[in-house]
């Protein structure tokens, strides 16, 4: 099943002008633990999907929020020449198709 079909929310957003942060929220405990135990969400997988350095990625599993979080440096600083997403809200799409066993 795709992560988008399981999740109640997948989003990206600026965390300040220099960082992008990605949240994946599951609708219930069963689905949250299914994703967590699958071991599919990893720093390595995220770094491949978003073409960034693994060392720059932060990853959190937030049991009490039934959520996963990734953060990475923005490829272009918010609002600088070439930035096409001022609020960083449309960067999460590659996460949607992650296959969860």
């Amino acid at each position, binding site marked *: 099943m795709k992560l988008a079909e399981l999740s109640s929310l997948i989003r990206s957003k*600026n965390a300040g002008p*220099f*960082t992008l942060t990605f949240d994946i929220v599951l609708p219930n405990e069963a689905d949250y633990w299914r994703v967590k135990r699958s071991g599919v969400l990893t720093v390595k997988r995220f770094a491949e999907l978003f073409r960034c350095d693994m060392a720059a990625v932060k990853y959190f599993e937030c049991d009490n929020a039934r959520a996963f979080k990734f953060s990475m440096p923005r490829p272009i600083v*918010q609002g600088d020449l070439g930035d096409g997403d001022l609020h960083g809200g449309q960067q999460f799409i590659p996460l949607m198709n992650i296959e969860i066993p």
Partner: protein
Amino acid sequence: MNNMSEVRYVAATGALGVGVDQAALMSSLELKPHFIAADAGTTDAGPFSLGSGRAAFARESVKRDLTHVLVASREAGIPALIGSAGTAGADAHVDWVLDIAREIVDEVGLSVRTAVIRSQQNSAYLLQLYREGRIRPLDPAPPLDEKLFERSSRIVGMMGVEPLQAALEEGADFVLAGRCSDPALYAALPTMRGLPPGLAWHAGKVTECGTMACEGGRGGVITGTIREHEAIIRPVGDGLRCTPQSVAAHSLYENADPYLHKECSGTLDLSGSQYIAVDERTVRITGSAFHPAAEYTVKLEGAELIGHQSVMIGGIRDPYIVNRLDQWLGEVRAIIDRSVERLLGLSPSEWTLTVHVYGRDAIMGRMEPERSAVPHEVGIVVEATAGTQDTATKIAQLARQPFLHHGVPEWMGGITSFACLHNPAHIERGAVYRFNLNHIAIPHTQMEMFRTEIVQLGKARA
């Protein structure tokens, strides 16, 4: 400083100017809150506000919201705190909100003893701190050199609770703060009354976005009650509920790290926080910690002028061009490069041409996984940026001809390859700015970066 067993407050809105639910705000006064607060700023609007000194919201919407906050606070006889005035919290923004407040006080007939706290930083002062090794990068940080401070349009320091507490000690009815940590607005009074900083800062973190930490409705206001061993979060408004999950999930929003939040005086640590439902719409938080820092630090935000910009918007539908778009754009760019050099005499460092291709990778740039898919049409935004508006417009005008008429081998004869959206094809966008600091300053004293002035708005009370 008198200790209290609990402090209650109302967060009127997550952003002054977005809207205050006046009915919910007035009804929240039944809680007998000790203060009302609202954040009015963010970097999320982009570098333009800080660079230009202008707000991201219309004056009318800020006036409407501030009227509700000031009227409610005077009716209840409790202080109102507004932080990060006018979007970016520099002096121009603080003055803009102060002017609005003055107008409200005159129109409504209030008396408001106001503490105005400024947080814009002097470039010579920052240069001195830099030379003393008192400015340090966060991660990631843009490069910093000695000339940056002078070159910046504006730099602000983000205040913590200390200047707010000094203003509350002064007996201010209204604290109007420049750039300010959002949760500090809510942590200032509880921590000065001896309540635990972990719970006070955490409750501030949950409530600073207004009812965003709730589910089940729109509008409303959110309230916090800080006690020795718990913080209680409860919304006021139709259908709004705080649940353990909604409150826990809110700490993810716009934060790179969901557990550790750095403030001037230390770090809020949510790794031991627990969320328990008190009833169907109220949540109790326990276990949040605040680790005081050895060094007092102030986060800096700066913006500098990149230049002036003119943009041209259009699109391409011809499959012969769309199929070889990179090559075609490269040829067009080479023609523009030559004419800018020849006709305007500009070297490459004096101007920039940025091309965004909608339908291909305009939104995700180099992170776009489906860049190789060939769309049936593309939207193109061409941005010409140079030192003056006049030059930027000339570059946009020079760019128009090659975009319009550059050919492809499949067609013999002259073609018109670019569908312009507007006439004239370019739009003058004015000044453009970039954020240039993600650093902290280590001041010599906690208060030296912030300046407080007491202003009486309306007639003084007897």
